[in-house]
């Protein structure tokens, strides 16, 4: 669908504050409530606005440790990607699995309650995953910026 400047203005305000009511959004975008509502409806129907998502603090839930794993697979095995991904999805502490084009093949996040818990997941579950040829770990110290906002 075509997105014009007015649509982009609405999207910018929505990105800034996901909790705005339609009236607040309309006022900020300089539109009438009706006009704003119609445009938001159209952006939702056209799949530009996919929905709302929660911003969660995993540390507040008791997950103090977050590690990003960067994995290189043994590509001499035909179905290495599919077999690896299927097995990794079964580990509840693993999220955000992505395939990459670059020096590493897969990246994924592991959340654990503490370092002992992480070590247990790593030894028992991660290293047991099929077709790994190398694993690199980055441990999160602090999140300096986290926004889903696009430069529109």
């Amino acid at each position: 669908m075509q997105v014009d400047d007015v649509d982009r203005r609405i999207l910018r305000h929505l990105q800034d504050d996901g909790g705005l009511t339609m009236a607040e959004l309309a006022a900020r975008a300089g539109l009438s409530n009706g006009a704003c509502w119609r445009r938001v409806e159209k952006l939702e129907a056209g799949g530009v606005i996919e929905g709302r998502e929660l911003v969660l603090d995993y540390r507040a839930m008791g997950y103090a440790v977050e590690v990003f794993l960067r994995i290189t697979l043994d590509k001499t095995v035909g179905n290495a990607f599919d077999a690896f991904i299927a097995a990794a999805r079964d580990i509840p502490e693993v999220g955000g699995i992505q395939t990459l084009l670059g020096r590493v093949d897969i990246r994924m996040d592991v959340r654990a309650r503490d370092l002992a818990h992480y070590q247990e997941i790593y030894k028992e579950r991660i290293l047991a995953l099929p077709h790994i040829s190398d694993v690199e770990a980055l441990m999160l110290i602090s999140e300096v910026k986290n926004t889903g906002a696009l430069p529109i």
Partner: protein
Amino acid sequence: MMALDEKDRAILQALRGDGGMNAAAVGKLVGLTQPAAWRRIRRLEEGGVILGRRVRLNKMALGFDVVVYLGVKLAAKGRVSLEDFERAVCAIPEVQLVQHVLGVYDYRLKVVARDLSDFERILRRRIMTLPGVGEVESNVMLSEVG
């Protein structure tokens, strides 16, 4: 830290699927009345587990076809250069995520770009010119699978 029970986890799971659901819809999914679900969601917000809600836009529909994860090493370490680097990198609008990490890199960045030549422009003009920046590794995201 906040103690969560099974119902709280079910609520978070439901809201992770669709963050726009109201308390009545969440309650229906997890087997709670609307007021009970509302009180629990409120408690999760006040306890700092739910920090907020944000709109999820379709990157492709808005012309952002490329997502790249960067590993960045700083060339010159020290408190001052960390702060300068962080301030400068956070100001780049195409950088969505900046994480200070421990490991082979010092920072992990997520960058959105319109296409690969747009990414090259961001990399050369914005990232490689950051204060204190050293080695940079780029991995282009192909797919999100889980």
